[in-house]
């Protein structure tokens, strides 16, 4: 087979995907109440358009788009609005949300189905994707329609579908590729059409040979990739697949590429073909802290507790609950929080799996430097951040960090490297804003 | 311009006063300093030649071409002839050897008898590292030179018979080499009697 493509740096955390990789996707019915966040996507939260006591149907818009980088929000169920207020969220202490009492899971098709998408212009398609509130399912929840509307001077020649799923434990994308290849392929075609791209390929890590084979059978050009974290990060994926370097501070479109997650492709297919907005997503519920790991198809707004219950409940020893994967996910202190569109996994780690190292001083071993996929010197940026020297941190490339966590993972001293760097990023951005 | 001249003149005035004061003090201290220096040399000459006799007479000896070939400083090798004050017999010589040590030019007062055998050495001036090179001043190290002849007068590492101070070979070498080279220069001028020829 020859040498697999990859990028420089990276690391190999034990992947533990076997816990759930052979569990077929199960559909979890919507719970009694769903709590729909109004900030599902990156960017501005949507404005609520309903109030307490309103009746809503499935797929109805309950929040309106409030800016360019923003999306509308739809109700994943039919029912009654119980309240509209700030509630705990997986990525922040609390945020605006709509609590809906579930009455029906019928309906949802709110737009005209377009079985033959080529009959419509790319602009119409992009508009549909926007109205259907499709955002990236790969983690960052970036509004997909924005990526599909590149500035005219940028010529997009390649679409890469991201089926890498390099985060340990997670298997939802894997199952998705095995179980719904046609939806993905349709979504892919729609995206290519919308972008007017010439090339399209799918990147898959070689720990999923079955998915590679299946996609190849279906005639998709697959780039098999070396198993290495963070192979799925878009800059690394583009580097590996095309040998193009996204300029520092730039976007994939600067090198004529758009990267979309396979789940996003499926959401696009459903929005265009079926006229259904993005209301559900696939979530891997796993970790040694749950009885029987599963891959679930759940409605947005379902509480984590319901997912855990479906996975057989907690085992004796649960130390940590995480929204997302173990490398980049966000720890939660309660399971009474809802699934959002960016929730790719719900992890319950027991005390043996969960990281528990006392932070010591950096011994300058250079492992973080050697493994940083962005070729940064994390130890130095983190030092500057720790001592609040934001300017120097910026000079060292703090803003180029993709927060993959590789550096913290490999650090023998247990330094909270990404954390410091993320803090630096926040401060630098805040300072920039203040100056502007 | 007037302003500038005024400033210049004031500065000049200050300097004038300073110079007057200094000139005055210098005229008082200069002879003392000179005397001091002379006494020190006299004293050193006496010590290094003490074994030659009790009442000695020192006459400076102007020998053409006697430059210290090793000295990094521009000084003539001033050889002083030592003779018995009573009989006037020449008993030996003294001279100052200059050798570049670790951090200074070491000055060694050397006394030789008329056959070219060293009868005494003492360090006149050195600024070597205290505890290392500076130990060259002390007995027993400097005493080693007594009785040595030209060929023996270098450190053991160089094949001679002088034990160097541990950790201070450079100083040891500076002293022994400068002494030897002084002696060699004198030998070239045929100042020694007897067998001390190449």
């Amino acid at each position, binding site marked *: 087979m020859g040498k697999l493509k990859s990028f420089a740096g990276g690391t190999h955390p034990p992947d533990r995907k076997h816990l759930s990789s052979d569990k077929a996707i199960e559909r979890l019915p919507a719970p009694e109440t769903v709590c729909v966040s109004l900030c599902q996507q990156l960017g501005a939260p949507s404005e609520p358009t309903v109030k307490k006591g309103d009746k809503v149907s499935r797929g109805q818009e309950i929040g309106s788009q409030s800016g360019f980088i923003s999306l509308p929000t739809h109700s994943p169920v039919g029912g009654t609005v119980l309240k509209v207020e700030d509630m705990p969220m997986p990525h922040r202490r609390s945020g605006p949300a709509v609590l809906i009492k579930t009455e029906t899971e019928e309906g949802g098709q709110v737009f005209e189905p377009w079985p033959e998408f080529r009959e419509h212009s790319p602009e119409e398609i992009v508009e549909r994707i926007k109205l259907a509130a499709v955002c990236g399912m790969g983690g960052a929840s970036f509004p997909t329609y924005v990526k599909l509307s590149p500035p005219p001077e940028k010529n997009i020649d390649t679409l890469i579908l991201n089926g890498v799923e390099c985060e340990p434990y997670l298997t939802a994308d894997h199952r998705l590729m095995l179980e719904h290849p046609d939806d993905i392929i349709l979504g892919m075609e729609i995206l290519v059409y919308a972008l007017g791209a010439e090339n399209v390929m799918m990147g898959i890590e070689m720990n999923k040979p079955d998915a590679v084979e299946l996609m190849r059978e279906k005639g998709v050009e697959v780039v098999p990739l070396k198993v290495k974290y963070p192979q799925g990060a878009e800059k690394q994926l583009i580097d590996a697949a095309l040998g193009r370097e996204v300029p520092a501070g730039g976007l994939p479109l600067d090198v004529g590429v758009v990267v979309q997650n396979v789940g996003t492709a499926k959401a696009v297919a459903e929005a265009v073909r079926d006229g259904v907005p993005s209301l559900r997503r696939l979530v891997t519920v796993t970790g040694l802290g749950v009885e029987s790991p599963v891959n679930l198809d759940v409605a947005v707004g379902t509480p984590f507790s319901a997912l855990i219950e479906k996975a057989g409940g907690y085992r004796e020893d649960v130390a940590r609950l995480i929204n997302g994967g173990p490398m980049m996910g966000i720890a939660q202190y309660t399971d009474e929080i809802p699934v959002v569109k960016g929730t790719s996994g719900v992890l319950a780690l027991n005390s043996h799996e969960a990281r528990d190292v006392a932070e010591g001083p950096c011994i300058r071993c250079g492992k973080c430097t050697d493994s940083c996929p962005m070729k940064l010197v994390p130890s130095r940026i983190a*030092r500057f951040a720790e*001592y609040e020297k934001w300017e120097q941190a910026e000079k060292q490339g703090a803003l180029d960090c993709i927060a993959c966590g590789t550096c913290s993972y490999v650090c023998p001293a247990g330094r909270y490297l990404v954390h410091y760097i993320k803090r630096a990023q926040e401060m630098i951005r805040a300072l920039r804003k203040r100056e502007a | 311009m007037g302003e500038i001249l005024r400033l210049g003149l004031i500065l000049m005035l200050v300097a004038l006063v300073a110079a007057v004061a200094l000139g005055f003090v*210098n005229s008082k201290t200069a002879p003392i300093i000179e005397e001091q220096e002379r006494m020190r040399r006299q004293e050193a000459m006496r010590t290094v030649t003490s074994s030659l006799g009790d009442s000695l007479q020192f006459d400076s000896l102007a020998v053409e071409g006697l430059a210290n070939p090793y000295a*990094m400083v521009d000084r003539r090798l001033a050889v002083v002839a030592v003779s018995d004050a009573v009989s006037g017999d020449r008993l030996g010589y003294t001279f100052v050897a200059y050798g570049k040590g670790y951090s200074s030019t070491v000055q060694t007062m050397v006394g030789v008898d008329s056959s070219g055998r060293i009868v005494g050495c003492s360090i006149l001036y050195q600024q070597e590292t205290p505890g290392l090179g500076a130990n060259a001043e002390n007995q027993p190290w400097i005493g080693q030179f007594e009785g040595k002849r030209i060929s023996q007068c270098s450190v053991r590492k160089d094949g001679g018979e002088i034990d160097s101070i541990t950790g201070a070979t450079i100083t040891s070498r500076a002293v022994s080499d400068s002494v030897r080279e002084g002696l060699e220069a004198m030998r070239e001028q045929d100042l020694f009697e007897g067998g001390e020829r190449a």
Partner: protein
Amino acid sequence: MSASMLMAAVLASPDTGGGGVNVAKMMAIILGAIFINNFVLSRFLGICPFLGVSKQLDSAVGMGAAVIFVMTLATLGSWLVYHLLLVPMELTYLRTIAFILIIASLVQLVEMILQKFSPALYSALGIYLPLITTNCAILGMAVLNIDERYGLGESLVHAVSAGIGFTLALVLMAGIRERLETADVPPALRGLPITFIIAGAMSLAFFGFAGLGG
């Protein structure tokens, strides 16, 4: 002062008196001044700017360049005055006072000239000039050259090398201090104390050069 007299004086200076330049001796002077008898780390000259201007690399480099420059100029001036004026008139005891005056005014003059004719160079070096006036490295250099009986050529080489040695120590120190900005130095030792300790450690490491070229 006539040109021929100057020539005569320079020619009569010890190093050129023989035949040509003594390469080995020059080498010894250069290595000695940069590494072995480094002005700051072993001779204790110029400690104040060494402590003061080693906080940032940029200013350390500027300061170093300025020192090399002034050191050379001052050496030239003081050597000439000493050998052409003070020695013939037997006024060598005035050397301290004469040297310091020469250095002070030279620096001012250079500052003025730079500011007038090369603002770029002035902004790079000029700001360091005043600091150098009362830097004992410069006066020390002038006095050392006399004590060591260096000729004019040797003195100049000595000055440039010592300036380079000073710059080397200063730049290394600045790099280290910048790194220590983000180190967990015990509060009591932060600032000057740790700077002294580093200087000590540097000086200890420079012992490694002992004996080079000697």
